[in-house]
C-alpha cells in the first residue's frame, strides 16, 4: 500500500511551512548584513532595498585595525585557536580514557564512568567563581591558554563519554586477533581501533568544536581584551552597547556562523550517527 495523495501533499506543505519558519529569521540576518544603512533605518520598511553592499564583510576581513570590524576579525581568530586547541586536547584525552573505560577491566570502572558524566552535568555557573579566583591568581585571565584549560572541563567529560560509547560498539575480535599476532594493547589501539573509529572521532570532534565555538559565559568572564576575547563575546558586547549599526552586527553574526554551519553541513552524516550512538543509547 502506497501512502495516499492527500498524505503526500500534507507532508510537503508541512515541510515547506517549517522551512519558511526556520529560514526566514536567518534570511533576514543575511539581508541586514548586505543592504545599506539607509534601507535599514527607513520607516516604514522598504521591502526591496535601494542598494546592496559588501562593505561590512570587507571591513571584517580586511578593515583597518582598531575598528569594530577588526575586533570581530581578531575574535574569530581567537575562537578558532581556542576551539581547535580544546578539540585536540580533549580528543587525545578522550580516546585514551575512553578506550580504558570501554575495554579494560579494572576496579571502580563504572564508578569512574559515572563520575566523569556527573562532572558534565555541573552547571558552569557553579565552577566559574572559584575558576575566576584561581585564574586571576595564576595570571591566566584574558589568555587563550586559560580559556583552553577551562573549555577542557566541558569537552573532556563529553569526549570521554562518547568515545567510550563508540569503542563499546566495535567488535573485539579484530583487536584480539592483533593481540594474538603479538601486538601490544596500545599497538592494537593505534593500528586497529583508531582506523575503525573515524566516524566516532569525527562526531566527537565536531560536537566538541561546536561546544567551544558556542560557549559564552566563561569567555565573557575570563576575557576582556582582543588578546583572548572570542566571537560570541565580541558580538554580544557590540550588540549590548546599543549600537544602531545593525548591518555590522548582522555581518559579524554571519561570519561567526560560517565555521559551525559549514562544518555541520559537511559532516552531517557523522553528526546524526553521533547523536544516536553517543547520546540516546548512553
Amino acid at each position, binding site marked *: 500500500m502506497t501512502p495516499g495523495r492527500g498524505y503526500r501533499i500534507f507532508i510537503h506543505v508541512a515541510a515547506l511551512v517549517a522551512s519558511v519558519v526556520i529560514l526566514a529569521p536567518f534570511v533576514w540576518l543575511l539581508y541586514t548584513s548586505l543592504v545599506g544603512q539607509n534601507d535599514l533605518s527607513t520607516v516604514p520598511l522598504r521591502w526591496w532595498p535601494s542598494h546592496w553592499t559588501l562593505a561590512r564583510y570587507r571591513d571584517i576581513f580586511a578593515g583597518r585595525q582598531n575598528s569594530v570590524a577588526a575586533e570581530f576579525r581578531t575574535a574569530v581568530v581567537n575562537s578558532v585557536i581556542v576551539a581547535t586547541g580544546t578539540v585536540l586536547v580533549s580528543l587525545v584525552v578522550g580516546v585514551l580514557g575512553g578506550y580504558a573505560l570501554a575495554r579494560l577491566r579494572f576496579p571502580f570502572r563504572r564508578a569512574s564512568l559515572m563520575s566523569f558524566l556527573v562532572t558534565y552535568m555541573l552547571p558552569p*555557573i557553579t565552577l566559574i567563581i572559584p575558576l575566576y579566583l584561581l585564574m586571576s591568581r595564576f595570571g591566566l585571565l584574558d589568555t587563550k591558554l586559560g580559556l583552553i584549560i577551562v573549555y577542557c572541563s566541558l569537552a573532556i567529560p563529553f569526549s570521554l563519554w562518547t568515545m567510550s560509547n563508540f569503542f563499546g560498539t566495535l567488535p573485539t575480535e579484530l583487536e584480539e586477533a592483533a593481540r594474538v599476532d603479538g601486538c601490544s594493547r596500545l599497538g592494537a589501539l593505534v593500528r586497529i581501533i583508531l582506523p575503525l573509529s573515524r566516524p566516532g572521532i569525527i562526531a566527537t570532534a565536531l560536537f566538541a568544536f561546536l561546544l567551544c565555538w558556542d560557549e559564552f559565559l566563561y569567555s565573557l568572564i575570563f576575557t576582556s581584551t582582543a588578546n583572548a576575547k572570542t566571537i560570541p563575546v565580541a558580538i554580544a558586547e557590540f550588540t549590548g552597547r546599543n549600537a544602531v549599526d545593525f548591518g555590522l552586527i548582522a555581518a559579524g553574526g554571519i561570519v561567526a556562523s560560517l565555521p559551525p554551519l559549514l562544518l555541520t553541513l559537511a559532516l552531517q552524516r557523522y553528526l546524526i550517527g553521533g547523536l544516536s550512538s553517543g547520546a540516546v543509547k548512553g
Partner: protein
Amino acid sequence: MRSQARLAALLLLPAAIAVFGVVLYPAARALIISFYDVDSPFAGRYPFVGLRNYTDILGDSRIWTAAGHTLYFTVVSTAAELLFGLALALLLAAPLRLRWLFRAVVILPWALPTIVTGAMWRLILNAEYGVANALLTQLGLQDGYRSWLGTDPFLALNMVVVADVWKNTSLVAFFLLAGLHTIPRELYEVARVDGAGPIRSFFRITVPLLMPTIAVVLVLRTIEAFKVFDIVYVMTGGGPASGTQTITFFTYLQAFSSQRFSYGAALAYLTVLAILMLALLYLRLLRQNQLRGLS
C-alpha cells in the same frame, strides 16, 4: 588483570587530572567560598559566615522572582521544543522529496551560535526598525509598532522563549529522529494488517516506543533551559524591569557586577541542588514508565 588496571590508570590519568583541576577542585572551592564572605578576587583572609549566605538567599525576594522566570522559561520552552521537535522528527522520517535539503534546513538553527541567534532575534524584534513590527503592521495583524523587548516584561520573556525554541527545536528533532529509527518497521505493518489507521498506530506504537528517547530529551532540555543565560544576556540584558532575569543571570550579576562572590557561590550551589532534584524526579518517572511497559 593487575596489568590491565595499571594500564587503565595510566590511560585515564590525563582525564583525571583535567577533571580534578578544572571541575572537582573548583566545585569544592565553591562550596567553601559559599560559607565565607569573599568580596574581592584577591587572596586573603575573609570572614567565615557559616550558612548566612544561604539564609540571605532564601529571604531575598529577587531570587524568587528570578526563579519564577526560570521556571516559566523552562516549562514553556521545553514543552514547545518537544512538541515542535516531534513534528519535525516525523517530517524528517516521512517520504519527502528533497529530504536531504529539508534535513539541512532543520540543522541550521542548531549550528547557529546561541549569541548569534539572540542578536538576530534582537534585530528582528527591534521596536523601530525591526522586521517583525513592519511585517505584522503592514499585514494588518497589529495596530502600531510595539516594543517587543523594551517595555512589557512578560512579553519580553515570551520573546526570549520564542528565540530559544527556534534554536533548540532542531536538536530535539534530531534526537527524536534517532529514536524513531530504532522502532521496527514490522510493527507498523502488523498494525496496518490489523486495521489500525495512522493516528492509532502513532499513539499505540510511535509514542510508547519513543518514550525512552522523549524522557532523555526532556531531562537534557530541562537542565539546559534551567541554566539559561546566553540568550537572555544578548536579547534583553535581564530587562525590562528585571523581567527576564533568570537564576543564572542573577547569580552572574551578584558575583561579577557586585563582586559578591560568596553569595554567588551559594546561589550556584542551590541551583545545582534544584537541577539534581529535577534529574532525580525525571529518573523516577522514567523508571515507573518502564515498569508499566514491562507489566
